[in-house]
């Protein structure tokens, strides 16, 4: 025996088919409108969790890149400083070579002494160079002037010492997960420790005083320390260069990682518009078919045929 089909169940089925069609259409339409495959965690629970992790990774990578560029600019700030120190010391070496010449008289040496005093002032001024808030040569003591000088009543510098709290503290910045780079250059690696006989300001003071006293021997004695002071600059230059190269490589790696994470995120999150458009078409057809079928099934009653 075939099952009795009632008017209500016909109607119910037609409505149900329409409802299903509409739900499917609304879902696809929502995905297309937002460009997002995931509208709510229940759409794809694992995808939801993955998307949050990937988004955090993208953000972390972007932030690391930001920090790497900060480290780059921090290290770049030392370029001008090192250049200036090199020029000062180079000029001092030239003067020392000329001043050591026995043919030079006291008047000439006096003039040279004055120039060396200017160079000394110049050198001391470079140590108070700042990048934004930070004293470049202050180590971790970034807010205190790194070099303290003593002057005689005539205003001439007679001695110089580093900040007793230390000027060599390393400032480290993480530029990638587990990769930290020192973004500063310690004062004593540039000018030497203040206890060292080749402490740059002290060598210049010695040179200046030897020239002022027109003591050729004493002037000659500064040549060796001056050379050491000048050679020392190669160290921080090389270190900064090495770190900058590391940062460059890190930035490239971060870039790759970021695009990788973004691609993965997009694969989880983003809707495939082409496929969805096709689906939308199909669903539209199914929906229209269900409407037509409902119209056919519901309309006729026996009444129309009882004439």
């Amino acid at each position: 025996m075939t099952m009795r089909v009632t008017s209500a169940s016909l109607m119910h089925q037609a409505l149900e088919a329409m409802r299903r069609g509409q739900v499917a259409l609304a879902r696809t339409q929502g995905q297309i409108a937002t460009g997002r495959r995931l509208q709510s965690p229940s759409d794809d629970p694992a995808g939801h969790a993955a998307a949050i992790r990937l988004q955090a990774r993208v953000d972390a990578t972007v932030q690391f890149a930001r920090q790497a560029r900060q480290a780059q600019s921090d290290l770049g700030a030392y370029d001008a400083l090192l250049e200036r120190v090199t020029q000062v010391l180079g000029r001092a070496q030239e003067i020392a070579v000329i001043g050591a010449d026995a043919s030079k008289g006291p008047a000439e040496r006096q003039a040279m002494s004055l120039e060396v005093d200017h160079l000394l002032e110049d050198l001391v001024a470079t140590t108070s160079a700042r990048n934004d808030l930070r004293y470049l040569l202050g180590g971790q003591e970034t807010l205190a002037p790194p070099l303290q000088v003593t002057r005689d009543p005539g205003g001439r510098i007679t001695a110089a010492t580093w900040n007793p709290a230390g000027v060599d503290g390393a400032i480290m910045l993480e530029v990638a997960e587990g990769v930290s780079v020192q973004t500063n250059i310690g004062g004593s690696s540039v000018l030497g420790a203040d206890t060292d006989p080749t402490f740059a300001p002290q060598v210049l003071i010695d040179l200046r005083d030897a020239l002022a006293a027109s003591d050729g021997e004493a002037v000659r004695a500064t040549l060796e320390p001056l050379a050491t002071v000048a050679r020392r600059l190669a160290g921080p230059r090389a270190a900064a260069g090495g770190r900058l190269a590391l940062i460059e490589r890190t930035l490239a790696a971060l870039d790759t990682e970021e695009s990788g994470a973004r691609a993965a995120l997009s694969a989880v999150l983003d809707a495939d518009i082409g496929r969805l458009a096709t689906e939308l078409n199909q669903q539209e057809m199914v929906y229209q078919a269900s409407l037509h079928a409902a119209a056919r099934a519901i309309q006729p009653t026996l009444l129309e045929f009882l004439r």
Partner: protein
Amino acid sequence: MSGLFQLLGLGSGSLAAAQYAQATAGNNVANAATPGFSRRRVTLVEAPPIRLPVGAVGTGVLAAGLARLREGLLDTQWRLDSEDLQFASARARVLEQVGALFGPADTTALGTALNRFFDALGDLAGRPEDLSVRAVVLTEAQAVASAFGLLRDQVESVEQDVSATVADRVAEVNGLSARIAALNGDLTLHPDDASLADERDRLIDRLAELIGVRAATREDGTVQVLVNGTGIQLVDGLRAAVVSTSGTPIGGAVSLAIDGMTLGEVGGEIGGLLSLRNSTTEGLPWALDRIDEMARGLIAGVNREHASGSGLALASSWTATEIVTDPAAALDTAGLWHLPVAGTLALGVFDGAGTMVSSSSVAIDPATMSLDDLAAALDALPDLSASVTGGRLVLSTANPAHRLAFGQDSSDILVALGINGLFTGTDAHTLAASPALLASPSLVATARADLTAGRVSPGDASAASAMAALRASTFLGSGQTPAQFLGTLGGDIGAAARSAAGRVETLETVVRVVDEQRQAISGVNVDEELAEMVRYQRAYEASARFIRTVDDMIGALMDIL
């Protein structure tokens, strides 16, 4: 002659029967769309014949009664399936609602706030001296706090909604039970009243959807309604039980009782709602616990790095934010939100110029040491004074011009008591950016005090770096990063919502099939009824014709007279 008049009676009887049948068909058509309506048929029987010598001669037709076409077995099946459907469907609705609070995946409020907070900490690691960067860190910390608070509030408001819906549905159950009991009474008086029986069945159907019931018909025609799976009666004869709810809208559990007897797990919509309202392993309390767990983990993790750090400026006095109710009890058992472990706390005292005056350390054993003991031990250290005021530890330098720096704290006591933290609070509700730091951003700890060399360097960003590195650190829950924790939480809720929605889809099909079977018996097919109407119309016309024929016969006899 009397035979002919009898034939007139026969004719009028069949007219009446056709009228009844017509009325029934008309009523069926009229109620074609009425929910719960069972189609009816007039039961026609042959009227008792008269026994004559020629045999038993028929006397026409009788409308013996109205049959209500219904199948009790299908009713039972429909109720069981509908109970399950409503159970799953209530769960799917609530879980979807909660899940939506965690999506869309890439821009969840909390996820975004956390990412920006860690970004700001990374910036701070690059520029610890910059007060504006410190201010940004604190702003982002506040954003994290409000995102946690908002998420918790939203889940709580779902919980409140669920509690309110349960109360509404329970009130509906009580109304239904009372009406069923009343109908039981009416039906003992009018056992044949099909519309009353339909009404009662419809109400029982609704009860099944709401709470899950089984109905048994008694010999006297009344039904007994039992809560499925419990054997507790909702309706028995003329008596209806009253279901009551207990519990608060938020927190705790909501439970049901009938006349003082506690109802265990019930089915239907109410059961589905209660399963989420009360379950600490999958429901709303579980979700709230997880949110709190994450907030607690974040507070502890960030504060652990912050507490042993120092800012651009140092404070001379700290007051714990956490109150210990019993300062004389061992710290282990004093009810602290975060348990300290055995370890040491190092401290340094600096003068106004930043030179260290003294450094010291205190060994902490939470199993034996009370807050009072700790205060005494700290008070005994050089240049420090400590006391307990209103359950809070107050720690300060003996000389108000001196400043206090914290070194390594392997005991977690600073985290537990809420001293020198970036966050204050103990859960998602109370989580906040430390008011002390907001008042003075230079206190945000970026450096680690070097208590051996006796200095705190402004350019040192080790503490800030350590906090920034927490983004990728698996310090939450059972070894998860913040993003993993948040993702898993949303994912778990999404998975539960998805499985509930899948179950709803399956059960919808099951219920539809049963409903179609039920409709096949009880439902009205308008065409069928129209055909019936035509049939009885013809029968009526024929009977009328019969009466005229008899009348003619009587007239013929009259003519003879």
